């Protein structure tokens, strides 16, 4: 071998390397974005802030990046509020998959960071991971977003919280119906599961409460993070003459951006997406985890526990309980529409609004509930929803 050629790298090797880089980048989803470090740089409160006692250590776990403009960002914003309280210590991990990885993360947070309560926020963390760890660490409290607590079956130290954000989607429906010129709305959902169906139905019922002939076309993408399919769905809905889009996927970013690009309107979900669609954004349903997490942190600070029953096992609520808020109205929303939305919002506030009324039919014409029986938001029947209301174009089956 010629000594001068010792470190020679052939063109073939370079090409091979570049191909490998690309392939790895694609498969490992290197492009899913990073969370800027400065977001997390808040220092934990000094012990003296809590009156000389140890700070309350809480752990938050997210399934995706913290700046996804969606589900994870909403939770991370809530955690940031808790962090700012001054007497808490917040540890966070983002992009933790729903496998043994989350068990290890929870274990590390408990053993290394000495957290007293964990908030694993993704639905898939619940069974079997949280259930397993809750048995291993009976003194740690686990609060889960959306999980079902079953008396006698679920470990005592597990609590569940979730909000009726479909109320916000009902209001979005009103704004969408009033702004739409074509009378056709579009909804991009991840999977036909109860949480998603409920948002579709409430959105449609809100729209039809002001314009009874309006329709919602639904497309399911099949998974929580499918940016390409979401863009295709948004484009095909726009092609069909639909002029207001909304969605229920992990990150609404792509849908909002596509709607803006196509010059149609959109309603946000999970978090505030005004920045993504400054012209077409009407309003949106945002989680308000700040309120909920602050309440939990205060209860934990006071020494209350879910094991002793001083923190309820199941916490559910809507606008009144501070689980959601509405995004600021965009420029396309008329004053009259704003007033209509605010009126309906006031009814949610005083609890007089019923979304699912007794005479409701599904989109095949079948009556849904026993005649005249109104379903309140708390009704567990609604958490098992497997139908789409009249006015929705789409099917639950895949």
């Amino acid at each position: 071998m010629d000594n001068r050629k010792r470190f020679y790298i052939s063109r073939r090797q370079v090409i091979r390397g570049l191909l490998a880089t690309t392939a790895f980048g694609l498969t490992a989803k290197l492009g899913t974005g990073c969370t800027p470090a400065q977001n997390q740089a808040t220092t934990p409160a000094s012990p003296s802030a809590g009156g000389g006692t140890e700070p309350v250590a809480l752990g938050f776990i997210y399934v995706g990046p913290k700046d996804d403009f969606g589900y994870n960002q909403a939770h991370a914003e809530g955690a940031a509020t808790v962090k700012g309280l001054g007497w808490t210590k917040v540890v966070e991990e983002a992009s933790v998959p729903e496998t043994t990885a989350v068990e290890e993360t929870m274990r590390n947070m408990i053993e290394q960071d000495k957290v007293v309560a964990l908030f694993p926020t993704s639905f898939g963390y619940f069974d079997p991971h949280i259930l397993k760890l809750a048995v291993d660490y009976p003194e740690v409290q686990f609060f889960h977003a959306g999980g079902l607590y079953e008396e006698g079956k679920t470990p005592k130290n597990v609590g569940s919280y979730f909000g009726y954000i479909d109320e916000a989607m009902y209001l979005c429906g009103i704004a969408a119906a009033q702004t739409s010129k074509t009378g056709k709305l579009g909804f991009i959902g991840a999977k036909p599961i109860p949480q998603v169906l409920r948002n579709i139905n409430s959105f449609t019922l809100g729209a039809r409460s002001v314009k009874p002939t309006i329709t919602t076309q639904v497309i399911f993408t099949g998974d929580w993070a499918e940016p390409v399919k979401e863009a295709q769905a948004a484009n095909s809905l726009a092609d069909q003459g639909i002029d207001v889009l909304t969605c229920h996927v992990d990150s609404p970013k792509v849908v909002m951006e596509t709607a803006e690009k196509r010059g149609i309107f959109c309603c946000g979900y999970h978090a505030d997406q005004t920045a993504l669609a400054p012209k077409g954004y009407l309003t949106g349903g945002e989680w308000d985890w700040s309120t909920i997490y602050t309440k939990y942190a205060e209860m934990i600070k006071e020494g209350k526990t879910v094991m002793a029953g001083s923190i309820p096992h199941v916490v559910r609520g809507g606008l009144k309980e501070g689980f959601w808020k509405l995004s600021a109205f965009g420029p396309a929303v008329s004053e009259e529409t704003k007033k209509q939305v605010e009126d309906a919002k006031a009814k949610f506030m005083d609890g007089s609004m019923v979304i699912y009324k007794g005479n409701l039919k599904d989109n095949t014409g079948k009556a849904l509930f026993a005649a005249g029986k109104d379903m309140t938001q708390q009704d567990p029947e609604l958490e098992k929803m497997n139908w789409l209301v009249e006015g929705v174009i789409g099917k639950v089956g895949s």
Partner: protein
Amino acid sequence: MINRYQWRSTLETIAIPLGALVVSLFVFGIFCGLAGANPFGVYGSIYQAAFGSWSSFQGTLIRASPLMLSSLCTALPARLGLVIIGNEGAIVIGGVGAVAAGLALENTSPLVVQLGMAIAGLVSGGLWIMAVGALRHYRGVNETISSLLMNYIAIALLNHLVGGPMKDPTSLNKPSSFPILDINMVGQIPGTRIHYGLLYGIIACVIAYFLIQRTTFGFAARTAGGNIKAARIAGLPVGKLTMAICFLAGSCAGLAGMVEVAAVHGKANESLNAGYGYSGILVAFIARHNPLAATLVAVLLGGILSSGGILQRSHQLPDATVLVFQGLVFLIVLFSDSLYGKFDVFKDKPPTTLTTGNEVSV
């Protein structure tokens, strides 16, 4: 006597990957410095989180166990000259097969159920990758592309089955198959929190190594991988070899799927598709398709993955940091491939009395 002259090339195959690892740690340190963290603190934390104590090492092994089995799905066909990246699909299909068997055999004894699930996982994953081999051998379809595309088919099939025919109606917001009974689950190795999947992985890697390096079957496969025309002329049954190796490769990944179902989740759902397949490709390439090296590399990668948490919690680094680290290691190891045979220090001195070649066998 020949071995005496080959220590330098053996040293080369150890020193170059290790050197690549050191270089990638260095580059990663620069990255951490740019992101505002102290690189030495980061190295310390990575070590602590991955290998620092028995408890954290268990975490590393838990993450490593699916990677060992998954990596064989790429490593075995690579010896035959095939680049197969269908690991993810084979894991998913293996998991689905295992659940189907587990539910069908539900009322028999736990041993029968576990055995049934393992066989179902092995066979279904094996057939899945064997289809890739068949497409390659009989129809000339590029095996890399077809195996990659079959991943998507497998995931779609999983989503269809757990959302439809196999769906447990009580799994509302995360559609899943019916659960396997607790009594039929594969447990933990006594005294640890590591499930038996780790043992399966190590045993499979040892068997694969023996099969490839120490049997005539393995020799035939390596010959066909070296020069397929020569192998045909020598009368080797290339088609049969392709089918057999692909089946074995797929069955390893299928077993990984079975372990995920039977030791972790207890049912089939979208969590089966968690990226172990893609990480397995990485392991196979770093291990240079040597099954024994794959066990070590899997442990190393498990350590890297389990350090992801502490990088976020203690060093306030972004969540993608661990992916950056993983990517750096992968790239630098791949590039280090080009350095083989370029250092004089690793050249075996030709024995003075013999004239036989002593080419570095790669």
